[in-house]
């Protein structure tokens, strides 16, 4: 299941050229923002400013990074599991409101009601983070249904973990999407573990997308190195274009998470060596290397970008810290919609 070493060496230089300097730099900055935002969140968790669950996307940034670059917030929809911070940032949500949500403040993304697992954006078509494994899959399918019903030309991207593949909702959703030709893209982010369970112990097949798609009369893609932005971006481009023609798609991105499942996870189910091996493939470091190699970025420039990003995150923390708690009359607000 692991990230494939035998991955066909994709032509990064060609893809890089296709992307161009401006775009690659922008994605790099977003990926860095995601990384720094979550690193800081982890620190704030230790400081007990953030409680409950905190599932970090660190290590997987290339996957969302590759996909969101092809999506139009507003026209296109996306949804994911509780591991939902990166998507919000790639969609351009303000780190301030997101950090404030983690702090449980009224200025938070959902007014302090949801916390780490439940970031949303109606404006960006982000149907948010969901806590029930597999629970978001039919929801993303419904967004694809709306796109087709309204003939908007939009697509819906549903991110799910390898651990969600065995859930019935996965099966039910793919069957409907295929029967009704919905513009639904299902991206299995296979980070090799569902909590402490290796995906080989949870799913009876190896290459999930390839093995399962035919059972739904769907087309499959595998991102063999999901820590490589270029491969993620190139596959995403193809998949999004395909889905826009009104067909569902199943994608498996083989990736890895560097942190524990949630902050409280000791991680004894994997070896130090394994972790280090993947840390060598750090998606952000690799993009940086490519940028420099292309002459689009200097070490000094990289320093500067990091500084700017760090500043934004620090400001977000300060904003969150200084924001007030929700007033108590929020307790019964929004139980029912107007």
């Amino acid at each position, binding site marked *: 299941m692991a990230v494939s070493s035998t991955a066909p060496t994709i032509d990064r230089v060609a893809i890089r050229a296709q992307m161009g300097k401006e775009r690659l730099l922008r994605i790099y900055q977003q990926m860095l923002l995601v990384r720094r935002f979550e690193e800081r969140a982890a620190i704030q968790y230790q400081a007990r400013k953030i409680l409950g669950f905190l599932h970090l996307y660190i290590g997987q940034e290339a996957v969302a990074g590759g996909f969101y670059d092809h999506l139009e917030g507003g026209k296109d929809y996306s949804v994911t599991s509780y591991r939902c911070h990166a998507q919000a940032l790639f969609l351009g949500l303000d780190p301030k409101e997101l950090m404030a949500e983690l702090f449980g403040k009224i200025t938070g993304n959902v007014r302090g009601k949801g916390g780490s697992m*439940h970031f*949303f954006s109606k404006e960006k078509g982000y*149907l948010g983070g969901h806590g029930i494994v597999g629970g978001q899959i039919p929801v993303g399918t419904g967004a694809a249904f709306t796109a087709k019903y309204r003939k908007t030309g939009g697509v819906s991207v549903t991110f799910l973990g390898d651990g969600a593949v065995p859930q*019935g909702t996965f099966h039910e959703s793919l069957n409907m999407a295929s029967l009704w030709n919905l513009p639904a893209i299902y991206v299995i982010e296979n980070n090799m573990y569902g909590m402490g369970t290796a995906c080989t112990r949870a799913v009876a097949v190896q290459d999930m997308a390839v093995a399962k798609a035919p059972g739904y009369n769907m087309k499959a893609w595998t991102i063999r190195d999901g820590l490589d932005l270029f491969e993620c971006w190139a596959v995403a481009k193809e998949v999004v274009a395909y889905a826009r023609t009104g067909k569902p798609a199943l994608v498996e991105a083989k990736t890895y998470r560097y942190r524990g499942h949630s902050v409280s996870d000791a991680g004894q189910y994997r070896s130090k060596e394994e972790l280090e091996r993947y840390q060598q493939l750090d998606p952000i470091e690799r993009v940086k290397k490519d940028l420099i190699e292309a002459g689009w970025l200097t070490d000094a420039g990289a320093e500067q970008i990091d500084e700017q990003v760090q500043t934004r995150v620090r400001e977000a923390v300060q904003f969150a810290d200084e924001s007030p708690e929700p007033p108590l009359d929020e307790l019964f607000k929004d139980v029912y919609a107007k």
Partner: protein
Amino acid sequence: MTAATVSPPLKPSRNLDPKTEPINGPKGVLLSNGRQLVSMRIAICQALCEEMQRDDAIFIMGEEVAQYQGAYKVTKGLLDQFGPERVIDTPITESGFTGLAVGAAMTGLRPVIEYMSWNFSLVAFDQIISNASKMSYMTGGMFSVPLVMRGPNGAGPRVSSQHSHAVEALFSHFPGLIVVSPSTPYDAKGLMKTALRQNNPVCFLENEMIYGLEQEIPVEDYQIPFGKGDIKRAGGDCTVVAVSRSVHWSLEAAEQLAKDGIECEVVDPRTVKPLDIDLIAASVRKTNRCVVVEECYQTGGVGAEIAARLQDICFDDLDAPVGRVTTTENPMPYAANLENETLPKPHRIVAAVKKACYR
């Protein structure tokens, strides 16, 4: 109050002639008195049809709702009128299409999903509770889920254990959901219209055994607000709060009790959540007695909640404990005699009311 907001009599002046008149589909039969004669099926179908004409965000999805015209023929004719984009047959995949409907509702549509019966909503339970009921709150009001879930609820005819659930209490337990349980065509149409014009997930609980019930209802458009009950029979001796099909059993019991000089006031909350506790309490302050009749189980049933509320707000008004007539605490048996004892039939209601009246 316009004519349309006064409940018409339960019994129509005449009945539909199945040979010459439609007993289902969206069209009622116009009467000389300016009203229309409809069955429960027609009332629900008509509400759906009129709202679908008004609002193209509404679509219907479920098993057999389109080509088969509905397992119980409630959606008869809608496929022909609105086409397969808006009236959609699904695979047997309740969890899947419920979640799909939640996603569609979050993105601007107004799904109406049919559970062939509410027994099958148990398969979709997590999508209803974890997603539909919480979305508005969990997103700080950013998203709403204007979703109507409908279908027959309660015991069908001799369909035994796995097919006889009444889910009023089950779904009323969860904030974020609205639970509607109409007992007449008039109420069903007005409540369905309200459901289709508001923004919360609604459990619209119909009952197969009264789909054929007929009534004369207004021709003009009307709505019935959630949380407003209706007095189905006035009486001063004992309040009988009854839900859905139980309303009719209660009315039957009331006639028998009247012969013994006990006049029941039959109160139909029409929506179990929100619950019109004020109307119930007002009646109890008059009668000083109350019996709740429902098809749910007794433990934690609708009667449990009403009794708990009344013993609080009517503490000094009650001359007897609030009685509860419910489905007995066993899965539904198939045998005719056992099924008859399991359901809250008139003979059990009569006994409970007499007990409450110390007779």
